[in-house]
């Protein structure tokens, strides 16, 4: 028997108009943690979908060799039977069902033809224990934080007796603490003999955890390296095919920050569903040409703040608070109203409320500001193409053409499309919620450059981000939130990781 549990040989996968994988070779040793990295659209998710039978046998060329045997998976079921479990980039849990039901979904435990709830819950508890998640198995999924949901996904995979566990960007929506937990868990699983393939854009954690790394670029394998050889710099240069300077670009020296553009005072909000006050007395402002960071842990209320501000979201009740725009008191009655007054919000959840997935890229880019492509009430097709194509180039959305449907883009490129939509709409104040989630290093740099360009042209940006380095690297000023309150404001000079974390967890200096 060879040392490899898995060998994918000469895999080629084409979609109409796109060669997503071009003769890719990918080998994983037994019992290792193997990381797969590459730019957005490099083909990482596609490769794993081929492996797990989501893209079924016959739709690709090449061989999948598992333990020396050529496999032909026609369904996910088939790959699961062979011991492969995949956790996709977008979680696949059913929010309304309980944790236990989700774990055994499709493989329900029956007694005399009926659900055996005791056994279901007991077994679920066992697997939850394995992933060190301490929740009641009967709790509905929607009540768990993303980090915990991720762990449930892993418990589910373990319950299928997976020998090979595939995780597609498992940490992209987790905060630092949850990420660290997850990585520890992966190490433990490795000790138990599970082989792990992990896709990630967080190169720091890749360096930390990988036994070996494979780099993909434009659908081809660039190289595979062992732990001893891996450094962040090396990964980056292999991923993007060139050396990358500093990741946070500097703004032009002549750039001046202007007067206060948006001022929010005493903002308090109750969530009518949970019947709980979720935001308490928030005061913040952003100036013309300024990037203000909004830091905090997952669940600190940053997204809720943005949504409640952005106009009358159902489910939120405003208890008190005023908004001033350029010194004038305003109210946003709806998102439409806010957009009209020059305030826009780019969501963190691109699939749920960011994109119209069944429409093409140009439709999505122009959707929030159709007036720019309308002449005398009629959409000017040529203008639309030119403008959308310009955005695609500016922000480097990797897809053969702007006619590609949004749902066919890679995760990171979908994210870029959401950004493109709002940059196209040219608001005065842009709230970005986790703008670089799932975006590769090279593209991050491009997005940061673009953000700088926008503020230099006078836009004001509020950036919500859980990535401390990004907040520190990009912000002129930082507010930190904790449990629905602002616990502190830091200038760019004062901002350090420790200072932010202290405020974010609201612990006193000692």
């Amino acid at each position: 028997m060879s040392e490899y549990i898995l060998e994918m040989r000469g895999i080629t996968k084409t979609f109409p108009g796109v060669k997503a994988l071009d003769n890719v070779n990918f080998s994983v040793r037994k019992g290792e943690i193997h990381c797969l990295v590459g730019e957005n659209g490099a083909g990482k998710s596609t490769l794993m979908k081929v492996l797990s039978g989501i893209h079924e046998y016959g739709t690709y060329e090449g061989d999948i060799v598992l333990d020396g045997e050529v496999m032909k998976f026609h369904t996910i079921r088939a790959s699961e039977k062979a011991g492969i479990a995949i956790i996709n980039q977008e979680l696949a849990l059913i929010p309304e069902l309980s944790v236990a039901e989700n774990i055994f979904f499709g493989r329900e435990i029956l007694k005399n033809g009926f659900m055996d709830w005791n056994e279901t819950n007991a077994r679920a508890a066992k697997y939850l224990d394995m992933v060190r998640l301490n929740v009641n198995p009967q709790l509905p999924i929607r009540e768990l934080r993303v980090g915990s949901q991720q762990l449930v996904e892993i418990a589910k995979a373990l319950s299928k007796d997976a020998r090979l566990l595939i995780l597609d960007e498992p940490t992209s929506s987790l905060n630092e603490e949850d990420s660290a937990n997850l990585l520890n868990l992966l190490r433990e699983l490795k000790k138990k003999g599970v082989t792990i393939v992990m896709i990630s854009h967080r190169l720091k954690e890749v360096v930390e955890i990988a036994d070996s790394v494979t780099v993909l670029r434009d659908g081809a394998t660039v190289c595979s390296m062992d732990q001893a050889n891996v450094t962040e710099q090396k990964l980056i240069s292999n991923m993007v095919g060139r050396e990358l300077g500093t990741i946070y670009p500097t703004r032009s020296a002549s750039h001046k920050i202007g007067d206060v553009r948006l001022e929010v005072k005493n903002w308090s909000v109750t969530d009518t569903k949970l019947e709980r006050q979720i935001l308490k007395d928030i005061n913040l402002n952003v100036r013309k040409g300024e990037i203000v960071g909004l830091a905090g842990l997952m669940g600190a209320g940053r997204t809720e703040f943005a949504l409640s501000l952005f106009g009358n979201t159902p489910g939120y009740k405003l208890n008190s608070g005023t908004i001033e725009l350029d010194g004038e008191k305003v109210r946003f009655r709806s998102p439409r109203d806010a957009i009209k007054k020059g305030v826009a919000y780019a969501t963190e959840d691109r699939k749920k409320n960011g994109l119209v997935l069944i429409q093409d890229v140009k439709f999505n880019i122009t959707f929030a500001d159709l007036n720019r492509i309308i002449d005398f009430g009629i959409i000017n097709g040529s203008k639309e193409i030119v403008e959308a194509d310009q955005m695609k180039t500016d922000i480097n959305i990797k897809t053969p053409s702007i006619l590609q449907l949004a749902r066919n883009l890679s995760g990171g490129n979908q994210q870029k499309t959401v950004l493109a939509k709002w940059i196209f709409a040219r608001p005065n104040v842009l709230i970005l919620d986790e703008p670089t989630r799932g975006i590769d290093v090279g593209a991050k740099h491009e997005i940061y450059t673009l953000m700088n360009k926008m503020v230099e042209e006078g836009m004001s940006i509020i950036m919500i981000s859980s990535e401390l380095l990004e907040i520190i690297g990009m912000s002129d000023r930082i507010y930190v939130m904790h449990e629905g309150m602002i616990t502190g404001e830091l200038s760019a000079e004062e901002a350090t990781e420790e200072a932010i974390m202290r405020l974010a967890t609201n612990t006193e200096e000692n």
Partner: protein
Amino acid sequence: MQEKNRNAVLTGISKVAKNYAMYIALGVIFIVFQILSGGLFLTAYNFTNLVNQTGYIAVLAVGMTLVLIICQIDLSVGFLTGFLGACTARLLLLGVPIPLTILIVVLFGASLGLLQGFIIGKIGVPAFVTTLAGEFAFRGLLTLITQDIGTINVTNKTFKGISQGFLPALFTIKIGGTEFHGLSLIIGILAVAAVVFLNLRKRKEMKKYNLETGSVPVMIIRILFFSGLIMALVILLASFQGISWTVVIVAVITAAYHFVLNKTKIGRHIYGMGGNVEAAKLSGVNIRKVLIGVFVSMGAMAALSGVMITSRMGCAQPTTGTGYELDAIASCYIGGVSTSGGVGRVINSVVGSFVIMSLINGLNLIGVGISYQYLIKGIIFVVAVAIDVRGRGRKALG
């Protein structure tokens, strides 16, 4: 290797099926009825009749397409059409001039649509419930308005002309033993020219911006196919009495809706809202206004349909409109409107309504009883949608 070839052939077939499923269904229906009826189906007379018969459902299907795109449904249009048709007859009976009658009825239909849209959009009662309630209510109103006289007859010739009249010939051309309606032929040629022009222009634009264009043979086949279809239709009509006003009305309505959906902001908002209502809201779409607008348009289309059916039958009856809503919805689905919203084209829905009416017309022609008609309609409907759905990779459960 063999497997690969098989795959290539399969994708080839599914591609054709995807774009032309409806036309294939239509072709099959035509051939079957032509044989079963002993050649009666495709006579100029029957064909003209079929086209005119399709008019009032086609108009409903146009309105319904928008409703379905935004993931709503309107079950009330059947009796709404019947009721508004009866209103038309009543007004004419009172001596109200025709243009004014039509105007009043269309405004009335639009306001009933507004009412339903308001209940759905502002109050939040689901469309299925609201319009089901509407169906009951309009049925009641139709019965009420026809109660005293039963069938309301309309004798006005001009009014009947809306659905029974034809364009003036201007001149005729005699080929063989048949006289052809001149103006109709000219219109046909212009339509073909438009098809060619639009296809070429689109291709040129795509080329100009370096966007993918289909292969030239595919485009030529498409142009030939649609030109052929238009010419066959026009020649058949021209050999009888020419293009009817019904065709003109349907064509104008379809063109207008097509334009609005594809070339205006409101059209974008409709598609966007249908594709992802949350994203649309956060992108600044006033989703309530769009929804209400779509139901207003549906009401107006029901009114137009009512006018057309009253004119066609020369009367309004207490049962007129029964089942029209289902025919309209079926037309849309046959025409490829997605059951999960966000996708659909009015032109295809109109062709879909033609498929349905061909079926009804053909079955009547060969003397199939009404019970069998429903049975067959059901089967054909599900088969047609099955082909369409599979061709587009839009299976119900993914």
